[in-house]
């Protein structure tokens, strides 16, 4: 375990920025998200979760796939070159860091998505332990430990020091760049912080969220047919915010932008909450909001685990608890279906 005074963070970033672009949480227009760092920027490490999940590092909200041009009746396709810029994502929380592994299962599975793969390969994740988990957090339900955040490098901020632990080869490469700034640190402070975090986790309102009901695949159709979907989805506005803030939602659309001289084919985030998502010329296979709502949660809690060795497509970050205008969220669904009849109460 290495450490350095936190006040030298700007210096550390400067050193890292000689080889990599750096992204870190910052406040802009009243909202904290990851932005490219430049010398002198104020960082927001006290904000637990960024408004926008860092999935956009590897799966941007919109990206061009190729450009098509037609000249003298002849068509040409020019693929967008894969981005090969390396970047350090500093301050990613344990839940968001786990979301990258879930996205990997989708995008890196055969056939591999090369747009995602190049960004992932060139991305270095420095994950930060959560000193103060909030009431909307339930990452521990998914086996995530916010005190031990993973990544290429795990970092802890304690008593004005930055503690640094490399976990991968990529992490070692980063450490090498800045090793002169660090000294050997005592694990004690980090161990104390870990114990403190785990104590806080034990006091969170959603700590007992049980996934037991979803662990038995035989009951998947029973869950699909549950009468509770009607009442659970009753106030869903279909706005899709849950899918856009979710670090694990990965559905996308492929669209054409006609720029006149060329057509740009791009892909962008899409949402299974929208009626047009499955609409075809001959009709729609999810005609009402209940069906769309059910699809989202069945996918996260049943279908994704079925295809991925029992791993749920949720990391318990709680963004959907904070952002849904109708107070609908996955914790509510887990409680309602898990408690076999009685709808789980308010999360607050």
């Amino acid at each position, binding site marked *: 375990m290495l450490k350095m005074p936190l006040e030298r963070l700007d210096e550390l970033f400067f050193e890292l920025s000689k080889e990599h672009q750096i992204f870190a949480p910052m406040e802009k227009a009243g909202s904290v998200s990851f932005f490219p760092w430049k010398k002198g920027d104020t960082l927001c490490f006290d904000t637990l979760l960024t408004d926008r999940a860092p999935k956009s590092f590897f799966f941007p909200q919109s990206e061009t796939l*190729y450009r098509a041009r037609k000249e003298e009746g002849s068509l040409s*396709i020019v*693929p967008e070159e894969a981005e090969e810029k390396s970047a350090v994502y500093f301050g990613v929380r344990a839940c968001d860091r786990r979301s990258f592994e879930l996205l990997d299962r989708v995008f890196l599975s055969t056939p591999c998505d*090369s747009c995602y793969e190049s960004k992932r390969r060139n991305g270095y994740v420095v994950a930060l332990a959560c000193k103060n988990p909030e009431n909307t957090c339930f990452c521990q339900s998914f086996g995530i430990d916010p005190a031990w955040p993973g990544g290429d490098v795990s970092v802890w901020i304690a008593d004005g020091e930055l503690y640094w632990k490399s976990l991968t080869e990529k992490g070692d490469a980063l450490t090498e760049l800045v090793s002169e700034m660090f000294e050997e640190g005592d694990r004690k402070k980090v161990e104390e912080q870990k114990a403190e975090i785990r104590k806080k986790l034990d006091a969170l309102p959603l700590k007992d969220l049980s996934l037991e009901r979803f662990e038995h695949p035989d009951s998947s159709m029973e869950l699909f047919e549950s009468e509770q979907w009607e009442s659970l989805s009753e106030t869903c506005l279909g706005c899709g915010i849950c899918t856009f803030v979710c670090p694990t939602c990965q559905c*996308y659309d492929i669209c054409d932008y006609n720029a006149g001289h060329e057509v740009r084919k791009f*892909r962008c985030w899409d949402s299974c909450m929208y009626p047009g998502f499955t609409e075809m*010329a*001959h009709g729609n*296979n999810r005609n009402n909001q209940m069906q769309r709502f059910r699809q989202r949660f069945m996918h996260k809690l049943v279908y994704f685990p079925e295809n991925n060795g029992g791993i749920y497509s949720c990391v318990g970050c709680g963004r959907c608890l904070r952002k849904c205008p109708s107070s609908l969220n996955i914790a509510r669904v887990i409680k309602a279906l898990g408690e076999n009849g009685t709808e789980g109460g308010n999360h607050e």
Partner: protein
Amino acid sequence: MSDRTNVLIPEIGMITDVRRDTPDVKTFRVNGLEGRKPFDHMPGQCAMLSIPGVGEAMFSITSSPTNRDYMEFSIKKCGCLTDWLHQMEKGQEIALRGPYGNYFPVDTELKGKNLLFIAGGIGIAPLRSVINYVIDNRADYGQVDIVYGARSAEDLVDLEEMRKDWSKVQGFRVHLTIDRAEEGWEGNVAFVPDYVRELKFSNDRTVLVCGPPVMIKYVLKALEEMEFASTQVYTTMELKMKCGVGKCGRCNIGAKYVCKDGPVFRYDELGVLPSEY
């Protein structure tokens, strides 16, 4: 899969022939720019066709893989992209990528079996690929019956090919039917499921069904009455698709993705999926 790093990038193909099959179905022959077939496929597999600025959609490849020279798509005019496609002519270029999805198990489960093809309307398109594959590998398969129906005689796709070629193959029988009687039609008049019952096929056959969802539903019911096992019946599904590789999330039914795990499903596999999505 064509040899490209990004599976979402299409290649360019040229329309080398357009044939009108019915008032709203045309068959497009497509070649790669080098003149050969754009890529290899198996019967039942699909490709994404696109017209830049208009859109992209998945279509089944209707020509047989045994044809090494070109690829064909029989397409019904029923939406924005297909309206555009129907205006396209020989010599024009389109973009295409693939092949996508699984295929009818022609080299395993279907081999050595007596086959029964049941199709309705444009549902003949994915089956045409298998039928011609069976013809080109005739010794590998037993008796073949094709039951094909449409609303009217003019809606029967590939009628010419069926009359000219399919019914002449040894061991092949083609049973055509239309929904309502009409002048000049001397063939059978009945809905496809009823006609299947009437023809009293022995239930030792492997069945391949494709057509409108309502037809498939009643055909499956008829087959059940005739004591066909669900493991003997194959069908194809169609849902909205964008990526074609099981990632964009659109064609998800239960834990399956139609573009990747399908479009071909054995009926017993469908039984464990949600009845609505």
